[in-house]
């Protein structure tokens, strides 16, 4: 489903922060992405999310060479990917419900067709009582759960999560991991970037480890 071949990335004229990255992510696969701070985990996620273009190498997503895609085609590819970023990126003028429903709204779906689905998911992530709250009044953990709910609501083919359990207690962390696993079982490929060894130990999955700009894969 995703193939990287000799991908390199540098910002401006700086040093190459990702070097000769080559890997293949099959559909319905589950993997953790780890490595020390500054190893390039977020940059690799951004390459996977098409918000960065590689300096060199080939990136093939869903069978398409990304470098040949138009802006509209990239927007369509992004609809098949869900992303949870460390800084959540919730829209402050929208309620939790509206933030989570945003992917459906962008798809042009009528509100009545997704209302129940959004409410169910919000309840499941423990935000049932907070669906009309605006993000500025949510706690860090609540924001994180809302961001995760937004990323998974449209059941993407690929889910990218950057430290998704960083701001929640261990119990909720386990619950969120269960959500990712269930999503994976229903057909979504999942990549979770994390430092949390305990989280990784809870589920037996492939580990991609970034070290000094290079990727090591542990099956």
């Amino acid at each position, binding site marked *: 489903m995703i193939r990287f071949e000799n991908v390199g990335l540098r910002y401006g004229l700086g040093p190459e922060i990702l070097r000769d990255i080559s890997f293949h992510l099959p559909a319905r696969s589950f993997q953790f992405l780890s490595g020390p701070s500054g190893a390039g985990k977020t940059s690799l996620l951004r390459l996977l*999310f098409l*918000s960065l273009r590689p300096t060199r190498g080939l990136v093939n997503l869903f069978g398409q060479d990304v470098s040949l895609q138009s*802006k*509209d085609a990239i*927007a*369509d590819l*992004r*609809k*098949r*990917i869900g*992303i949870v*970023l460390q800084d959540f*990126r*919730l*829209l402050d*003028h*929208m*309620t939790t*419900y*509206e933030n989570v*429903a*945003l*992917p459906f*709204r*962008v*798809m042009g779906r009528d*509100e*009545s*067709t*997704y*209302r*129940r*689905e959004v*409410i*169910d*998911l919000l*309840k*499941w992530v423990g935000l*049932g009582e907070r669906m009309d709250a605006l993000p500025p009044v949510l706690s860090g953990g609540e924001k994180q759960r809302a961001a995760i709910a*937004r990323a*998974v*609501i449209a*059941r993407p083919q690929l889910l990218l999560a950057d430290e998704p359990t960083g701001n929640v207690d261990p119990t909720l962390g386990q619950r969120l991991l269960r*959500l990712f696993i*269930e*999503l994976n079982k*229903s057909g979504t490929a999942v990549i979770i970037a994390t430092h949390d060894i305990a989280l990784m130990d809870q589920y037996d999955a492939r580990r991609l480890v970034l070290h000094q700009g290079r990727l090591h894969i542990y099956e």
Partner: protein
Amino acid sequence: MSKAGDGHDVLMDLGRERPQVPVRARNMSPIVPRASIAGRALVAVVAIMTFLASITTGAVLLINASASEWQSEVASEITIQVRPAAGRDLEQDVAAAAAAAREHPGILDVRPYTREESAKLLEPWLGSGLSLDDLPVPRMIVARAAPGTRLDLEGLRSRVTQLAPSTSVDDHRAWIDRMRSMTNATVFAGIGVLALVIIATIISVSFATRGAMAANRPIVEVLHFVGASDRYIANHFLRHFLRLGLRGGVIGCVAAMLMFGFSESIANWFSGTPVGDQFAALLGTFSLRPSGYLVLAGQTVLIAVITAFASRRTLFATLDEID
């Protein structure tokens, strides 16, 4: 995974946690919050620009209408001037020239000015109580041609000069040509001012759009994250700008229309005074015809469309930068 009541797959099976009451439809917040766009300043700029554009267009329409009225009046008139000459009877020459003009094909009406009327014409310069017997003052005959006819002016000139050699015939062509070039110059100046106003509007709107995009950059980024295309994002911003442009345009246009409406009343207050008469002579009644008001309304729509178009171009350019 289970089936939800509405027939769509749901991600989670909540079991007994599922809400038992029907979910109400929600009023969704706009994707781009209205308050995040510096709307008032933009409405004011567009209103001022539309006002200036409407005043310019209205003035050009007024001058154009007055000039065509003048031209049609003057163009249908011919002035025959009979100068006193030694050994000739001026009264007889005037009568002969008037008779010749009356018989000329295409002439509707001939009116020779009497001695008293000629004296009255000179009164502003020479004062009252003037005796024309002491001065070699020429006499005027005003002939009115039927509208739309092409007069044989040469024929008329040779006929009257045969009867009265000291006669000249003037069809005011030089005067009309000068008027026409003055009107054209006014129209060109008006078009120039309009072009400047439109360019200034485009620049103001582009700056406002850039500012709004900068203020809403986080929203644009999130929309990109959830797979929104540039067209989708641009359309949401565009709606705001079209609305702001229309609001500004309507304010400016209504203000200009009121001004034209009131200027008619103001002209009426001044009628009878020298200043009022001068203006009335130059610009007629100062009243814009209904078609003029329609032109102003059309121009407002045009400015709103230009606002939206300028905003759209800037939006796509900025989205390219953000991406």
